[in-house]
């Protein structure tokens, strides 16, 4: 295990540097332009609620941008390495499959963390220039977004190992992300439904990670990310990782 740690680190750093070189800054430019444009519009429309609108719009945009890029990376990374036969070179060396997968996941999360940090900085400076301070629970909102990304990126790695293309992985993961945000509403509907229908809906809910647990961006300071939310995030991430490892172990490389 101790010997594998440098392997995980080098795969992670390699994956991170690959991501950073890959249209990374174009996305930042798009984000910056959209944020500035939205701030001008918000100033005209929201009047005295401009600070709130700017904060909400920025946080939503940060999450969507980071999600899009992280999913794009996670869904194409393993497929690309299999297509270019790079993965054969990696596994011809003493690289355990679990370490390779862990490295890939850590690289993706490192990229996501950097994206979140840079975009948050951009967003906060925009707020500052418009005369506003740091919004309430801003750090927690970013942390919640990071947890959501962790759950969904590991799920995307899992899906990418059985789906036929990067697009289908992207679509399936995006659907899971959407369902994850619907989970609380679906639970409400399940509790309202009686009999078999309610039971089936309740059982189905166990298959969907409840991303609202981490959605501080939406619920604000009212939602505290406590130990149970952290445990859920870790458990769902680990579960997808183990599932992906199971699929990877069945493949002939």
């Amino acid at each position, binding site marked *: 295990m101790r010997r594998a740690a440098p392997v995980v680190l080098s795969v992670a750093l390699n994956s991170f540097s690959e991501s950073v070189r890959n249209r990374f800054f174009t996305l930042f430019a798009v984000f910056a332009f959209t944020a500035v444009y939205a701030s001008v519009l918000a100033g005209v429309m929201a009047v005295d*609620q401009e600070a709130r609108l700017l904060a*909400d*719009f920025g946080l939503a945009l940060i999450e969507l941008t980071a999600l899009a890029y992280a999913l794009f990376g996670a869904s194409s990374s393993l497929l690309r390495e299999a297509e270019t036969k790079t993965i054969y070179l990696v596994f011809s060396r003493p690289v355990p499959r679990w370490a390779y997968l862990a490295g890939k996941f850590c690289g993706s999360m490192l990229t996501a963390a950097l994206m979140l940090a840079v975009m948050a900085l951009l967003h906060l400076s925009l707020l500052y220039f418009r005369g506003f301070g740091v919004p309430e629970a801003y750090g927690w909102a970013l942390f919640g977004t990071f947890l959501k990304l962790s759950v969904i990126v590991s799920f995307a790695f899992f899906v990418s190992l059985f789906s036929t293309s990067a697009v289908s992985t992207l679509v399936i993961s995006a659907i899971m992300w959407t369902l994850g945000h619907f989970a609380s509403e679906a639970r409400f509907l399940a509790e309202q439904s009686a009999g078999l229908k309610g039971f089936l809906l309740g059982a189905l809910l166990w298959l969907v990670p409840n991303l609202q647990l981490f959605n501080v961006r939406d619920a604000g300071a009212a939602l505290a990310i406590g130990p149970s939310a952290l445990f859920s*995030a870790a458990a769902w991430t680990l579960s997808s990782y183990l*599932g992906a490892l199971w699929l990877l172990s069945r493949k002939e490389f």
Partner: protein
Amino acid sequence: MPPRGALLAAAFLCWGAGAYAASAYRSPFPPPSEMRAPLEGAAGDMLALAAGARRLFADLWFVRLMQYYGAREMPAEAEQPGHEGHAHSVDGLGHAHCDHDENYGKGRYPLFLPMARHVLEVDHSFAAAGLYGAVSLAFGLNRPAEAEQLLAYGLKYSPREWKYLTVLAAIGYSKAQDPAAVARTIAPLLKDPDCPVMLKQLAAFLNKKAGDYAAAAAIYADIAATSRDEAYVKNARRELEKFSSRAGSRR
């Protein structure tokens, strides 16, 4: 590498543990069954739920509400050339008259309550929107019953929101024709950063009416310094100029 079967079993176990830990969580938001979105807003509400962006969509609904209330509402004949900006009526002899009654310019805004309520249905914690809606209904549109309805809905999901209770009390005093008590009741709200500028304007007006010019001037000065709404800022500056010229003539 552990056996493949163990990996799969561990994956299921982890997923189940995550779901179990999350099962106690209940959404703080009003349930979807309470969302009474107008037809053209239903897709937006779906998106709000799907993207976990209730706050952002509540903001957009609030902007729509302000635009709706900000747009002048007039009957169709008021837009005819030569008669812009006012309504008409026909007397017993069949003669048409231009109407300039006390409600002129106030409008009916029949969708105001459903739109204001919808902001809270999407995000109940948006107290500034609740206050704006209730104050507009009670004091701008003279529909206190609808304002109370809106505040009751807001209090259902935010029972500790003292600002709603304060406005409820102010509506009560307003019904009892006691403007000084209304001004006193809403005074603590004015210090809140979420206080709608309209409420500040109302407080200043009530203080002026009650003869407390110092309090009115302080509120107008606050509006002029903090509001981003140009119309209110201009009005506040105008009022402040009036106060200073009045004070100058007394000297």
